[in-house]
């Protein structure tokens, strides 16, 4: 049975939504319009040929056999053979055309959605959880592939088949058509009810499959704890409960389909019974010929199968619609941080100046930054410190225009960042995040994230600039070493080195650092420190600091508290103030003094 569908009530579309979605799908599919027309032509041919078969048989029986006309019989056979060949040839073409259209559409959809996601600013990524965005690009799009592979084709041919079948039946005998339609209400009502029940049953199955898989995974990953506490039996017992409830859900869904398939089978036979009984009476009265009744008996399945198929497709179409609805809402999101139409390049160097900056995160009650002003001169090093959530990271992010402020400005060399080209902005101001985030690929590939067009020599000199040449030369594949997923092949310190080399490759005027809170492996810690030192030389640096040593190296320290700059000055100046900073320095010192 087909279970591609499964739509929860909140995902069900309204009529208006459905109409817009269909319209947009057609617009997106415009580039492959030619293939669509070809597919449509093929459907018309195969449907007509399939339906003409019983008509040909009827002709063979009535005009050939019953009239004892050998020629007429032979003609029918030849025509039948031609029709069958046509069905085959156009059936093949149909598969190719429909699949090509569908898969091309999915491809275009994947690219469009991803591109749009990439255009979005950080605020978008704050709002949408990573898992949800990944699901949009994977599960939601994949949920349509079944529709694309079979559904579309089935839908087209079933719909046409139904229309053609009714037409053919009407032409053959309107009286018998009415007889055939006597069964229709049962079939339609049963199909609708089945769709509703099986959808409900399927949603439960899906939910329990998920729960069951989680239980499995939890059991396997926590096996050490389970064994350490000798709780294997208890965990087994709980798993059994989840497993049996999954079975119950499966059983329920089979029961739903049991009576439906029974009814379908019955109504097919029942329709033949009606045909024999009432149709036979018509023959006796001379209203229709025997051949017509035979043709009707044979054609009944062409009438019933499409109805059944269409109703089974209903859920699949629904869930595809729901997925498209979610995808279109991503396509419709306008990026908050975008390049201004008359943007200019930033100067190569200059002062970074923040004036009267106010910023509130979407959905937050209180501002994260409230009228903050500060300037950082060329080559100056500013440390931002303060309690968690006070706004120091936010300030750093706004200085790199990862967000746009509600009011106030950030300027570099006298140019408002909002008026700068994205390209020059990313070249002048570089953010190095807390943890070295690596992508699957080689070390070289990971550096090219920062500058796609960098030559090998440029990459090597970036590595040399942070003094890590020797370190990576130790690897047997050197810079071509595959770092694997998330860089798991490298240590945390090595990942950090790669992240710093990226920044060196861009060679920015301003460096914004978010210092790591956790510790690195002792071996590379010194190397990372050293690399950082070299990278910072000669650049304007803004660092979100968590360590005393870092703070002490800064020319200037800003204590951010309650969305504002509470204190500003050098290490000793601020200690002397005996305020926020003095307290913080004290706490830092204490947390490490227990051991000595």
């Amino acid at each position, binding site marked *: 049975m087909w279970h591609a569908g499964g739509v929860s009530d909140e995902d069900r579309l309204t009529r208006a939504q459905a109409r817009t979605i269909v319209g947009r799908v057609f617009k997106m599919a415009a580039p492959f319009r030619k293939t669509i027309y070809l597919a449509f032509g093929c459907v018309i041919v195969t449907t007509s040929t399939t339906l003409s078969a019983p008509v040909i*048989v009827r002709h*063979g*029986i009535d005009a*050939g056999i019953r009239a*004892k006309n050998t020629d007429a019989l032979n003609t*029918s056979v030849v025509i039948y053979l031609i029709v*069958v060949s046509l069905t085959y040839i156009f*059936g093949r073409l*149909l*598969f190719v055309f429909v*699949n090509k259209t569908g898969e091309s559409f*999915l491809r275009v959809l994947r*690219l469009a959605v*991803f591109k749009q*996601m*990439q255009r979005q600013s950080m605020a978008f*990524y704050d709002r949408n959880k990573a898992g949800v*965005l990944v699901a949009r690009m*994977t599960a939601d799009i994949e949920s349509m592939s079944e529709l694309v592979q079979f559904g579309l084709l089935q839908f087209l041919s079933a719909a046409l088949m139904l229309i053609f079948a009714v037409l053919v039946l009407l032409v053959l005998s309107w009286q018998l058509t009415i007889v055939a339609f006597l069964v229709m209400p049962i079939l339609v009502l049963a199909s609708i009810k089945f769709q509703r029940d099986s959808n409900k049953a399927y949603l439960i199955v899906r939910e329990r499959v998920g729960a069951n*898989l989680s239980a*499995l995974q939890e059991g*396997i990953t*926590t096996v*050490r*704890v389970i*064994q350490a*506490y*000798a709780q*294997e039996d*208890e965990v*087994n017992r709980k*798993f059994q409960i989840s*497993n049996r409830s999954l079975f119950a859900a499966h059983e329920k869904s*089979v029961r739903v389909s*049991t009576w439906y*398939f029974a009814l379908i089978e*019955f109504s*097919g036979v029942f329709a*033949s*019974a009606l045909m*024999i*009984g009432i*149709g*036979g*009476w018509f023959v*006796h009265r001379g209203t229709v010929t*025997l051949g017509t*009744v035979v043709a009707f008996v044979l054609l009944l399945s062409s009438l019933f199968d499409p109805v059944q198929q269409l109703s089974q497709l209903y859920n699949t179409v629904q869930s595809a619609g729901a997925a498209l609805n979610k995808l279109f809402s991503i396509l419709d999101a306008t990026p908050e941080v975008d390049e201004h139409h008359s943007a200019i390049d930033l100067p190569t160097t200059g002062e970074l100046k923040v004036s009267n900056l106010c910023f509130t995160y979407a959905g937050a009650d209180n501002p994260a930054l409230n009228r903050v002003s500060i300037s950082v001169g060329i080559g100056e090093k500013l440390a931002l410190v303060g309690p968690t959530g006070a706004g120091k990271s936010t300030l750093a992010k706004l200085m790199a225009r990862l967000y746009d402020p509600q009011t106030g400005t950030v300027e570099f060399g006298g140019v408002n960042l909002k008026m700068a080209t994205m390209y020059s902005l*990313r070249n002048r101001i570089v*953010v190095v995040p807390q943890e070295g985030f690596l*992508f699957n690929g080689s070390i070289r590939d990971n550096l090219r994230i*920062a*500058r*796609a067009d960098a030559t090998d020599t440029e990459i090597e000199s970036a590595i040399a600039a942070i003094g890590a040449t020797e370190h990576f030369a130790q690897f047997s594949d050197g810079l071509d070493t595959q770092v694997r997923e*998330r860089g798991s092949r490298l240590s945390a310190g090595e990942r950090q080195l790669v992240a710093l080399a990226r920044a060196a490759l861009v060679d920015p005027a301003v460096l914004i650092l978010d210092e790591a809170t956790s*510790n690195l492996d*002792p071996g590379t810690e010194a190397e990372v420190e050293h690399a950082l030192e070299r990278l910072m030389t000669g650049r304007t640096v803004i660092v979100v600091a968590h360590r005393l*040593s870092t703070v002490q190296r800064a020319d200037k320290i800003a204590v951010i508290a309650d969305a504002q700059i509470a204190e500003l000055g050098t290490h000793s100046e601020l200690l002397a103030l005996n305020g926020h900073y003095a307290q913080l320095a004290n706490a*830092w010192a204490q947390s490490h003094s227990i*051991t000595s």
Partner: protein
Amino acid sequence: MPLSETDSEVSARIEFEQSQRSEGWKLLRGLLRDQRRNLVVGGIIGITWASFKVAIPQITKFAINDGIEKNGPLLRWAVIIACLGVVTGVLSGLRRYVAFRESRWAETLLRERLFGHVLGLNIGYHDKAQTGQLMSRASSDLMQIQAFIVMIPITLSNVIQIFAVATILFITDPVLAIVAMLPLPFVNISARRFSNRIHPISVAVQAEQAQLANVVEETVSGVRVVKGFGAEQVQFKKLEKEANDIFGEAMKAAKIRSNFLPAIDVLPALGAVGVLGVGGHRVLSGQLSIGDLVAFNVYLTLLVWPLRNIGMIVALGQRAAAALVRIHEVLSTISDIKDPEVHQTFATATSSTTQLGAVKFDHVQFGYDPTQPVLTNFNLEILAGESIAIVGATGSGKSTVARLLLRFYDTNNGHVFIDGVDIRKIKLSELRQQIGVVFEDTVLFNDTVTNNISFAEPDAAQEDLERAAKLAGAHDFILQLPNGYDTIIGERGFSLSGGQRQRIAIARAIISDPRVLILDDATSAVDPSKEGEIRDAMRTVMSGRTTIVIAHRPGTIALAQRVVFIDDSTVAAIGKHEELVSTNVRYREVLANMEQSKTAKNIQAVK
């Protein structure tokens, strides 16, 4: 496969694969043995259904010949056919129901067996096993098996149906029967080939989809890097490549579908053409009635689905066999760590003064790979009620000591005793009930706080629970959680801070009041400013209980009465922290290393 494989190696390999496969089928037979009765019932229903299904066109033929052509009793014929409809309808529903129910039941039981078996396997096995692989054993492999079992009763009735139809056709008119059925074997062959060809492509499509998912995942997770460097175009190129790959594989699948599916549809029609041509002439020459001719056409359609299904079940069977072999491989793995055949029990406290929980490692030698020992000649005696800290460089085997005590692994040589009893002579469950452990990486379950704490003792009373939580310093913050002790925590539940997680793990370790407590430095994953809270909790629960603290951070050492310094895979020194600091150079080095890794520079700076 190496090219240099000799003939004897080839035959040995083939023999091995065959024996594996036959073990797999044996597993399936064993599974289905208990459901034999229901499967037989299903088979009977299927056969009955098939015979009725076959009878209907025959009756229809009589009805046309007798009722319509010869003006017979039409109503009677119509009623008879309608009644047959009711019977086939009910039977066809039941056939599906039994087939699906039984296959799901077999799947359910096998999954439980698999899960239970995997849970019982020794930790050495789990060190090597990949979670993803075990998961696919219990999900996709089971699915393959279920898909095969469901086809068993259906196939049975299909085979009967094919035989019955073929017999009727041959009795009616042998010549026409041959003409009609000539193309049909090709339906079967095509269906089998199609199923075999499309399978690897669908696997490939899935693999490509997974790669695309990886690109999306890393782009979204690394969005700071992507945005920070303006690397949108680089990532887009990667995604475009994956999207194109998916498209390529999907089109390959489309090609295969177009090669087979229309052909499968059209082959029976060729038989129908033959029936009209040859049959028509035979009616004209008086060898056949018109009713027979019509019935022939109907019978042909009855053969199409059974033949397709049989083609499919061969392919399904091959996949199920492979899945069965993989599952058998897991089920036939025997745990290295077993209960003793004759077991002793721990002595219980005889009087209130007797302190329990003395631990002794006696000449222990152990290596995860026996050729590379982690501990050699390891001797250690811990008095009942005493707390010791184990200190050593990274990889020195500190945590191994705890794992040996829990019997996660058995020693290669030497013995471990608790209260004078060799732990290998105690039942595993009894041994582990006497040990409470807090792992370095806190693992909590997706469950309520209550169930997490009472994990070791599911029947614990609420007051015991709260006592443990209070001792671990967790009670107060638990009360502040949205639903208190009923709050769901863990990966998918309410997210706790590292320190809170640790304290819940500590409460879990002490709830059953174990003889020995193992604390694998619970502070290492915690924000430095929260270390103090954890240490307070540790200090409380340690008092008066044999405790082994595995120290990854210098601050934790002070909690214990004695320090055991492991160096060079054995006990290098035992004594008080201050003594070791003043007498042992190597100890000072190791400490300094630990220190350095947590920014010793800062401390000096403040001084």
